[in-house]
């Protein structure tokens, strides 16, 4: 086994026994990045020198006997998570040369443990997209077939984990941006409960929906990385002061006695046959492992995309007002006065999808339309929240598809924004409600692309989510071979 193939857990065990050095593992990954990233385009910025320095420091800590679960683990970080003195571009021309003067809370926590940061991963501009095609450096490719999207918006992180260009990665999820690329690439992705992980230093897209979460090779690693980043942070006023359990505690507990709900609305409309088959086989397996299967209803599912695509762009139009060419980022050189400096900077600095969403949000919040759009959507959001509350009175976890289809071809949907939005049908509701959710690989399409299933749990119950995911992982019918890289 090559160093780059290790999981967080395996690497940690090997480091504890002093069998390998952090520097050797880091070099092995940097070599691989050097060899493959020109094709896959997973990284926007690679930081070999900083990573080597962190690896040497980690080796010293290991020698001194100071070893935490993430000490010496080489990670990749989505490029909307602020890293001190390393570019944080959000996949946007407008932040091309931006160097944050501080670390995001999650980075600070990981640095304190002695993690290694290999680089910053590609993403849809400001996390707006479902394919990582909306990036100023071009699309990230799916390691299973490079003609296909990796998913998005955390496509760079998902590809980096899948192709072993890092040991594990951080992504962010506003409407599916961790789960959908994890599903398309055949890796594990988790969006924590809103407030579980500090958003301090995460560049804001839609503040009431955004969460940072792990993308990993397996469920155990997901539990380890989640544990390292969650917990209260006074610098994020929406951070939850809730106890953080040992997420590894129930990895081998099985699923006997748990009630698993199947929302009828998720298996009827628009989903691909192979996707439905994958969910059905996962349900059958959970049942044979002892779970009680319950049919439930989330009646407002059909309104989730419309609700989300009013609320998220509205929040975005307000959040992105800060990019005005004054304090940081790109500034248009052709402006004749202050007003034109703002409008030319923004028109030249933002890509098409970001402009579309800013306009959509500006419209939905503007005088005369606020009640019909933003308020209406926020009311429907309440009904979606109530659907989940009712569902979790009856069961412990829900199981659904992640995306309606396996990964699609690069370029296939880019000119049709509404069709692209509709591909988020199964992933946006948990963000609107704020509940935790996860994608676990469970099937392969006939064209050789992975298909994940989505698990949802009640507020702050990531533990049960991980418990159910580990049962699926143990019984996954996925072939033992990995992607062709």
């Amino acid at each position, binding site marked *: 086994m090559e160093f780059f193939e290790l999981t967080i857990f395996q690497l940690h065990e090997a480091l504890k026994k002093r069998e390998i050095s952090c520097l050797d593992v880091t070099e092995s990954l940097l070599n691989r990045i050097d060899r493959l990233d020109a094709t896959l385009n997973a990284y926007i910025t690679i930081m070999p020198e900083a990573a080597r320095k962190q690896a040497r420091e980690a080796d010293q800590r290991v020698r001194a006997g100071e070893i935490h679960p993430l000490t010496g683990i080489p990670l990749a970080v989505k490029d909307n998570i602020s890293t001190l003195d390393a570019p944080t571009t959000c996949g946007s021309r407008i932040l091309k040369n931006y160097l944050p003067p501080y670390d995001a809370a999650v980075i600070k926590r990981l640095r304190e443990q002695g993690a290694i940061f290999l680089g910053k991963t590609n993403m849809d501009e400001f996390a707006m997209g479902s394919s990582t095609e909306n990036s100023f450096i071009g699309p990230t490719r799916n390691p299973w077939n490079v003609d296909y999207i990796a998913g998005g918006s955390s496509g760079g992180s998902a590809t980096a984990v899948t192709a072993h260009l890092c040991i594990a990665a951080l992504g962010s999820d506003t409407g599916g941006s961790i789960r959908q690329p994890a599903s398309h690439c055949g890796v594990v992705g988790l969006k924590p409960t*809103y407030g579980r992980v500090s958003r301090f230093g995460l560049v804001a897209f839609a503040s009431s929906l955004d969460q940072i979460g792990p993308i990993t090779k397996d469920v155990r690693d997901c539990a380890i990385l989640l544990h390292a980043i969650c917990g209260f942070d006074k610098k994020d006023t929406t951070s939850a002061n809730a106890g953080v359990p040992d997420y590894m505690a129930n990895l081998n507990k099985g699923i006997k006695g748990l009630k698993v709900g199947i929302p009828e609305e998720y298996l009827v409309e628009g989903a691909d046959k192979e996707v439905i088959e994958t969910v059905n086989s996962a349900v059958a397996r959970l049942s044979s492992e002892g779970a009680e299967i319950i049919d439930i209803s989330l009646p407002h599912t059909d309104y989730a995309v419309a609700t989300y*695509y009013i609320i998220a762009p509205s929040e975005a139009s307000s959040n992105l007002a800060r990019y005005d060419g004054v304090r*940081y980022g790109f500034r248009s050189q052709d402006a004749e006065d202050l007003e034109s400096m703002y409008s030319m900077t923004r028109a030249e600095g933002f890509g098409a999808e970001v402009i579309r969403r*800013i*306009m*959509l949000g500006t419209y939905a919040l503007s005088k005369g339309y606020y009640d019909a759009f933003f308020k209406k959507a926020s009311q429907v959001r309440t009904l979606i929240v109530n659907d989940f509350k009712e569902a979790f009175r009856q069961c412990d976890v829900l199981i659904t598809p992640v995306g309606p289809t396996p990964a699609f071809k690069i370029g296939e949907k880019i000119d049709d924004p509404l069709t692209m939005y509709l591909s988020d049908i199964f992933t946006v509701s948990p963000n609107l409600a704020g509940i935790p959710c996860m994608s676990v690989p469970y099937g392969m399409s006939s064209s050789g692309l992975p298909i994940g299933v989505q698990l949802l749990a009640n507020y702050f119950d990531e533990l049960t989510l991980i418990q159910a995911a580990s049962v699926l992982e143990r019984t996954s019918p996925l072939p033992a071979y990995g992607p062709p890289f």
Partner: protein
Amino acid sequence: MVRRMKIPLQEAEYIAGLARLRLPEDQLLLFTKQLNTILDYMEKLNEVETKGVVPTYHALPTTSALREDIVEGSLGKKEAMENAPQKDGDFFSVPKVI
């Protein structure tokens, strides 16, 4: 019958102005068309009865996050200015306003 567009071109131009986006004509036309398609889809929400439903603006119930007023270190002037596209000493520099 020609279906009335939710956002005619003129209004899209007004919205772009509010959002401080100076868009070339061809882009504005394309976005206007796409926004109308998207907003037609949003009509769906009118099927839902929401009379008396309290809107949700936060995923979790929030209260004012208060803390003790203790002075702590914060970003220094130099660090805060480092990313400025144009500066003049300790000031951000912009085109002449008046």
